[in-house]
């Protein structure tokens, strides 16, 4: 079984793809059958992925050498693209995580989407997404990865806009696609550069060639450029500043989608891509520093927005952006291990929180404002307590998963700083402060939603088991999944790392700081939003720092800037081009036509209709031509084919 799975890893994405085809062409009319097909395929993939994980994590050879097999996709002289499978601990981990989370979320969706008229369609999209995401994970070739990257983007687009009757959903979907498209443009350029300069897009070959980049006529500056261009893709896909704007809007989609695509899987594809191509980035310290700065800034920036948001899913979305910033930071300081670890734990606790939020929305019939909620934990204990688990995990309270991964990131950042990168201290400070903010805004939400007074107008009820079961599984994962990467027994770091394995001694001081920050954040939230039943202090603070509050509440007006740019610059120049086209280019054309018509009008007076006049002219012409040919220069006659 393990052997089979390793050699047939392409089945993992293929099963959901088949499910998509089956649903679209066969079972579309039957909702029940469609979801069954979809879930069965995903569970099949999960089984295979587990077997792969077993296979990979029991064989130490995989740490150094990944299992790669591929077939040609298309090609011609001097340009061949292969598609294939690349299995190593990182991709095995991702396969396992993605199949697990997707399966759980599909099960959850059978409850959440129960009465939706487009139920079957929803599951077909989820299957397609699963297929693309898994294809992305196992891709052995950058172009293959890019293809899947775009396909997950498509699924994201379709699923954000799933409620097609909502204008906001439609606009959000468009925005998501467009924003990621800008990143993809850069990424495409980067890929093109790699193809042109190194003649291959195969990850293994690139990894072998790039360290010797100077032999391929690539300067360090160009390589930095390539790296930055390639990084544009992840900036957009993983919601990094300044292309993060689509991610919060993406919450217009159904909540399982938010959990699956916009928290656990697709948005981490950017992080995964950087992780996959880290061999490129370690060559260019400049790009690495940029990644670290962007990551840290995004983490802080998004957290600063999250503290004032009111809609439950938006808070979670900004939290996702912030946590993705953490992962980027970890990559930027050169630790694949820490980044992937956070990716792994984050997938569980963030999916958990989104699903729980979905459960809340389900119960409250889509009232999303956290200020309208309260005391829900009494009516919805499973949802509530699993959410609390998620909250503890993200805030970084040991022994929950988030603590270990976040601590790891802080440790590697500190090490980065100690290795002579002065900026590292600033990054560390940002990361640490973000940790505090994270604990605060997350528990602000928890206190407002689940504790405190119940609101009379709400009639919450616990969700069905199909929705709570995934919550419980995810809660368990959120609690324990971090334990494989503790500083004392760092199994994780041993398997997933780049370059030499990371062997830091347990940094107890940092751990203590981290816990302290988390507790401080929770404590502040407790004081402001639980103890103070009327939340007077919180409102007073908001009043006192009105400009700051407004800035944060309006997301630093980034959206407005983009909207201005689109409307005033892009659309205006589009209109300008169009007017140029119809008045200038077409004007020339119509002008020429008018000249022709005018000369026709003039010449028509020659058309007298008098037959004999025509004949007169005709014979005159014959006479003249004959005379010219007969008595004119001799070459004139030869042109017309005559000989004198």
């Amino acid at each position, binding site marked *: 079984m393990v052997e089979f799975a390793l050699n047939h890893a392409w089945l993992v994405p293929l099963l959901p793809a088949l499910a998509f085809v089956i649903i679209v062409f066969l079972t579309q009319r039957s909702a029940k059958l469609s979801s069954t097909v979809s879930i069965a395929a995903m569970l099949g993939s999960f089984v295979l992925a587990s077997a792969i994980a077993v296979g990979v994590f029991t064989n130490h050879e995989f740490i150094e050498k990944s299992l790669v097999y591929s077939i*040609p996709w298309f090609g011609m002289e001097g340009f061949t693209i292969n598609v294939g499978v690349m299995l190593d601990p990182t991709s095995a981990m991702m396969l396992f995580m993605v199949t697990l989370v997707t399966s759980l979320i599909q099960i959850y969706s059978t409850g959440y989407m129960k009465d939706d008229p487009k139920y079957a369609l929803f599951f077909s999209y989820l299957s397609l997404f699963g297929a693309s995401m898994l294809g992305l994970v196992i891709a052995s070739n950058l172009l293959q990865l890019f293809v899947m990257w*775009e396909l997950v983007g498509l699924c994201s687009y379709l699923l954000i806009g799933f409620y097609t009757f909502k204008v906001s959903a439609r606009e959000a979907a468009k925005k998501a696609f467009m924003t990621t498209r800008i990143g993809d443009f850069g990424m495409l350029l980067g890929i093109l550069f790699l193809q042109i300069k190194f003649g291959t897009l195969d990850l293994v070959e690139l990894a072998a060639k790039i360290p010797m980049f100077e032999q391929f006529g690539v300067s360090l500056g160009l390589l930095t450029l390539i790296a930055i261009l390639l990084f544009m893709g992840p900036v957009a896909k993983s919601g990094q500043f300044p292309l993060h704007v689509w991610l919060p809007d993406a919450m217009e989609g159904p909540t399982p989608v938010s959990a699956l695509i916009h928290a656990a899987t697709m948005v981490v594809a950017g992080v995964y891509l950087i992780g996959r191509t880290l061999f490129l980035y370690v060559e260019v310290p400049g790009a690495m520093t940029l990644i670290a700065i962007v990551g840290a800034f995004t983490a802080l920036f998004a957290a600063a927005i999250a503290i004032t948001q009111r809609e439950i899913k938006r808070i979670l979305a900004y939290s996702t952006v912030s946590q993705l910033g953490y992962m980027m930071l970890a990559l930027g300081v050169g630790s694949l291990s820490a980044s992937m670890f956070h990716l792994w734990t984050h997938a569980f606790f963030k999916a958990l929180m989104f699903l729980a939020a979905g459960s809340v929305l389900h119960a409250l019939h889509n009232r999303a404002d956290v200020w309208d909620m309260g005391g829900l934990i009494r009516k919805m204990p499973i949802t509530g307590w699993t959410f609390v688990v998620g909250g503890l995990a993200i805030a970084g309270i040991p022994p929950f998963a988030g603590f270990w991964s976040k601590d790891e990131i802080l440790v590697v950042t500190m090490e980065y700083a100690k290795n002579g990168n002065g900026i590292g201290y600033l990054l560390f400070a940002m990361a640490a402060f973000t940790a505090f903010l994270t604990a605060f805004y997350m528990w602000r939400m928890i206190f407002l939603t689940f504790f405190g007074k119940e609101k009379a107008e709400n009639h919450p009820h616990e969700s069905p088991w199909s929705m709570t079961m995934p919550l419980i599984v995810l809660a368990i994962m959120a609690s324990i999944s971090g334990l494989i990467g503790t500083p004392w027994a760092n199994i994780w770091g041993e398997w997933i790392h780049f370059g030499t394995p990371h062997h830091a001694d347990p940094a107890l001081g940092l751990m203590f700081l981290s816990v302290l920050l988390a507790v401080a954040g929770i404590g502040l939230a407790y004081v402001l939003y639980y103890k103070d039943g009327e939340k007077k202090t919180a409102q007073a603070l908001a009043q006192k720092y009105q400009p700051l509050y407004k800035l944060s509440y309006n997301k630093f007006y980034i959206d407005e800037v983009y909207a201005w740019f689109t409307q005033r610059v892009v659309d205006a120049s589009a209109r300008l*081009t169009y007017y140029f086209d119809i008045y200038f280019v077409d004007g020339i054309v119509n002008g020429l036509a008018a000249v022709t018509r005018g000369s026709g009008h003039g010449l028509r007076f020659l058309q007298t209709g008098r037959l004999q006049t025509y004949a007169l002219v005709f014979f005159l012409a014959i006479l003249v031509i004959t005379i010219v040919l007969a008595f004119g220069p001799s070459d004139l006659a030869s042109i017309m084919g005559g000989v004198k």
Partner: protein
Amino acid sequence: MTFPFLTTTLLAPILAALIIVFIPKENDKLCKSVAAVGTGIALALSLFVYFGYDQSVGGLQWVDFGQPVPWINDLGVTWYMAVDGLSLPMLLLTNLIGFTAVFASWNVVHRVKELMILLLILIAGVMGTFIAQDLFIFLLFYEIVVIPIYIMVVIWGSSKRVTKEYAGMKLTIYLLMGSAFLLAGVIALFVNSVNITGVADMSFEALAQVAFPEQLQIYLFLLLLIGFGSLLSMWPFHSWSPDGYAGAPTAVSMIHAGILKKIGGYGLIRLAIVVLPLGARFWAPYMAVLGVIGVAYAAMAALAQKDLKYVVGYSSVSHMGYVLLGLASLGVIGINGAVAAMFAHGVMAALFFSMIGFIYERTHTRWIPDMGGLSHYTPKLAIGFMMAGLASLGLPGLITFVPEFTIFVETFRVFGWLAVIGIAGIIITALYVLRAAANTLFGPARPEFSHIKDLKGPEMVPLVVLGSVLVIGGILPSLLFDMIDSGVAPLLANINDALQIGGK
């Protein structure tokens, strides 16, 4: 291979047209069915030829009657029907679109008999240009194409910004103007080839062997570039394209955007680049600049459009810019990409126009602000529209992505940052396509459209046929690329020799 498969393929629609002539006017259904059968036979035959072609051997195959049949000896004109890896995709494309265009016109009620006859003649004419290996016959078929289009636009077209008469006239005059330049170039080419070799031979193969002097090549290439370029809607000879498509009936838009434009690209490769390599080398940078301008300019103009057909009209100008860019690279990879992009764009544009045609038939408008929420009533139509749109913005997994990427690889290498502007076009493309799709298909359901029906019966044919080509071509690009490469690589090898010898 002596059975004339290609001539048979060519005759199938003509025969169908002849049969339709004898069908009573009132019997619409029978006319359409005969047309469908005729184009269907042509499609089946071209599929057979496509998959029967031996790529390992390459070169011209399926020569009708085994060898060129002399026709006009004094001019060296022969009935030389054969295909290679360059012609075959175009032949297949023609028949795919021809077949679906019949079904896209299924709901026409006005003068169906005449429409079908003209449509079939049009299809046969276009097909002829792609399988003729003789310059004269190529031109002959090209001229055959022009006239039915004018009649069809003027009778079955629709007016919006411009009248259909204006649109038809513009379209026709542009085509004729292009063919005038072309004719001048071709005659000069032929006369000079006779002067150089002393033998009159109009076949492309023979012309490619002639060593024209460099200065002459430069002049002639310009003539051919303008001629084929205006057919390809090369900027600034593009302005017929949006108006023409907007005015034309669905089937004409499909055929025009889908295949007629491709005659320009095909001719540029087959005649201009292969026969006049030195001229091509001289003009290639200018072609690239025009291509890039076309991409960016038309994409921006498309962004400002409110009429669906105009959006697609400008978008096809933009996509042809990519083709021109790929051709200008003069490399095997770039030209492979350009040919594949022509095929891909043909399928995509045909699907797009057929879907817009169906929308127009149902809502009687193409004005984007008047629409919205159509996907609630017509999910299948929405799928077709979205597939075409996504293919237009180059989504991987659909047929357009790999060709575009291939073009980018070569042009980025050859032209550097100039190509970046072209590549940036994908952003704008995505913007206008998504806007059009969003404002047409999505959003709140509108009660005024509640009566409209989804696609059904014969109307599904364009969606099914073209949609599956889009997907299959996207997943298995090698089906297309191996074929094209087997045709382009030998042609380009000859050019490179010429460039080596002449390129001191």
